[in-house]
């Protein structure tokens, strides 16, 4: 069943899915390299689960093809595909004990002596003493591990995970994320993970595809997506971004823009669109890149940094950091995260401050987009 030779990539070519007049997934090309941990990230209804189900064979694409390595599987029923799924609700068979649940796939493929393999798998997911229990006797986290074991024991070419951690509480979720990552590294199987939790996607995956409205907005390594978002949706959905609408004064290697009388600089290479002098640009910077000083200490700021003046309107103490909201002429709600190394007691709401950051940390986006895309949808479908 397993094809471990090179070229075991999952290749989706032009696949789309329509339900009547509703388009769940727009024609999509995606290559998932063999052995990678790939995450499909997006809010509910963005088409990520539909894409996963098309790979699993649970949904037939309206157009396009699905290939696993050299084999075209577009019209193969799920039971003939070398892929297995970990379902969102686990979908464990309630009438079978844990052992039989895990042995199910092996038995269906006509393997007679399953005991050794199943026992090994039960050990791998640390459920040794629960082998003869029924699923409803286990906790959520244990059920989740049974679901992973039940799929993994078949050594699928690709393991599909449909929000597998959605039902777990935060702490258990963090633990399972590391666990899954460990298992993936150990077995070397391609994992395709669907999630709406951007932190989860970034912690676990090598490659993240951010989906929105049935399309892939951007695809890349987590750090790359975070540092260089190419759309406002990605900038807002992955973490938080401060986006400032600005007019381009001069383009080139160094782009100079002005917003509400403030001049800002950014590298031309970090613009996802080609800035034109006289045109508009959305200038973005992540909250943790910003530094904050009281207005009367402006002279301490090194030359060449981007500076914005403003007034603190809110501050919240998070523990490792303090989050400030700053009202400035360029943007009404600039967010700033300051590490709590030495807390400056003067930084209280109402204080006039100057924000400053390295121009290298600034990115530029096409101003024709909705500046708020991706801000409201983060926790939806949790």
């Amino acid at each position, binding site marked *: 069943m397993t094809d471990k030779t090179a070229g075991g990539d999952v290749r989706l070519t032009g696949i789309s899915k329509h339900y009547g007049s509703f388009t769940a997934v727009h024609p999509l090309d995606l290559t998932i390299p063999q052995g990678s941990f790939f995450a499909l990230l997006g809010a509910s209804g963005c088409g990520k689960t539909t894409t996963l189900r098309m790979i*699993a*064979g*649970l949904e037939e694409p309206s157009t396009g093809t699905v290939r696993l390595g050299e084999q075209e599987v577009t019209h193969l*029923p*799920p*039971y*003939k595909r070398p*892929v*297995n*799924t970990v*379902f969102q*609700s686990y*979908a*464990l*068979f*309630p*009438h079978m004990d844990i052992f039989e649940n895990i042995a*199910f*796939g092996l038995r*269906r*493929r006509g393997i007679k002596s399953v005991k050794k393999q199943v026992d090994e798998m039960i050990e791998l997911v640390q459920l040794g003493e629960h082998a003869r229990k*029924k699923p*409803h006797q286990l906790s959520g986290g244990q059920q989740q591990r049974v679901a992973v074991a*039940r*799929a993994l024991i*078949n050594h699928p070419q690709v393991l599909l995970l449909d929000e597998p951690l959605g039902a777990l509480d935060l702490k258990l979720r963090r633990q399972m994320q590391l666990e899954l990552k460990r298992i993936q590294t150990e077995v070397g199987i391609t994992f395709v993970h669907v999630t709406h939790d951007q932190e989860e996607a970034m912690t676990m995956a090598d490659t993240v595809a951010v989906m929105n409205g049935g399309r892939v907005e951007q695809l890349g390594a987590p750090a790359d997506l975070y540092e260089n978002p190419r759309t406002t949706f990605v900038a807002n959905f992955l973490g938080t971004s401060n986006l400032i609408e600005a007019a381009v004064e001069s383009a080139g290697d160094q782009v100079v823009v002005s917003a509400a009388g403030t001049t800002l600089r950014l590298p031309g290479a970090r613009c996802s669109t080609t800035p034109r002098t006289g045109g508009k640009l959305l200038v973005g910077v992540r909250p943790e890149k910003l530094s904050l000083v009281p207005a009367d200490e402006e002279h301490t700021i090194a030359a060449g940094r981007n500076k914005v003046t403003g007034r603190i309107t809110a501050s919240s103490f998070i523990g490792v950091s303090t989050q400030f909201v700053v009202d400035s002429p360029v943007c009404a709600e600039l967010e700033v995260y300051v590490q709590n190394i030495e807390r400056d007691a003067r930084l209280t709401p109402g204080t006039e401050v100057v924000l400053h950051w390295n121009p290298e940390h600034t990115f530029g986006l096409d101003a024709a987009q909705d500046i708020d895309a991706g801000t409201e949808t983060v926790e939806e479908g949790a």
Partner: protein
Amino acid sequence: MTATAAPPAPAPEAEPPVHKPSVRKRLVPYWLLLPGILWLLVFFVLPMAYQASTSVQTGSLEEGFQVTWHFQTYWDAFTEYYPQFLRSLLYAGTATVLCLLLGYPLAYLIAFRAGRWRNLLLILVIAPFFTSFLIRTLAWKTILADSGPVVEALNTLHVLDVTSWLGMTEGERVLATPLAVVCGLTYNFLPFMILPLYTSLERIDTRLHEAAGDLYATPATTFRKVTFPLSMPGVVSGTLLTFIPASGDYVNAELLGSTDTRMIGNVIQSQYLRILDYPTAAALSFILMAIVLIMVTIYIRRAGTEDLV
């Protein structure tokens, strides 16, 4: 619950208002149970006791009946009427199997494939109940009438040759044969099979079907290993709801059968209402009850429903 430093003095003051309603509260469930208990007492326990005493009486209508602990009646009744007992179990068993074979696909369809037609189909399943049991059974008399369209068709298709060979019909007629009685029973008890089946099928998470398919099970295997085992509670309650009343039924055999198809229900009915031999009738009732109870117990043990969720 937790140890506190509160002084003990206020406790007795606080206790009475808490204590009083709790006694009344504890009695509430019993008050609510009372109508049900009374009902069972008057309409189930008392008649049962009365029947039990009747079954060990001797005497005649003219001289009156007396309790003489004459258990011989049981043995006599059983040895005289065991063919009717066997026939009852055979007919009820056949009808139950037919109900299961007809009802399962229908319940499956309603539960998984009917979509927005689901409620309409369910109403259609129980629609026959809007007409009286008797009228419906009489209608079957017309349907199966000699040289009626159904019999003609069965004849042309040589189905009756097969059923005759099986001993279920005689010659070119269906009415007054075992086939007619079994058909009547099947028809009348079908909804009692479909509804529990539907309830247990409907509860099955369709994602389990997807999971089975994902784990290399063909649709047929998925049915065998996942759907059917999970529908066992419905199968068990459906077969019981069909078999138990069918084995004691006498209307179908009375209206659609002949003297050769008399079931134990018909015997009990005639003992009570025509021959007026009350002890025998009561003894027969108890024997039937015992047989059904034993069979049901073995069946439930075998089916192992307590293992299911």
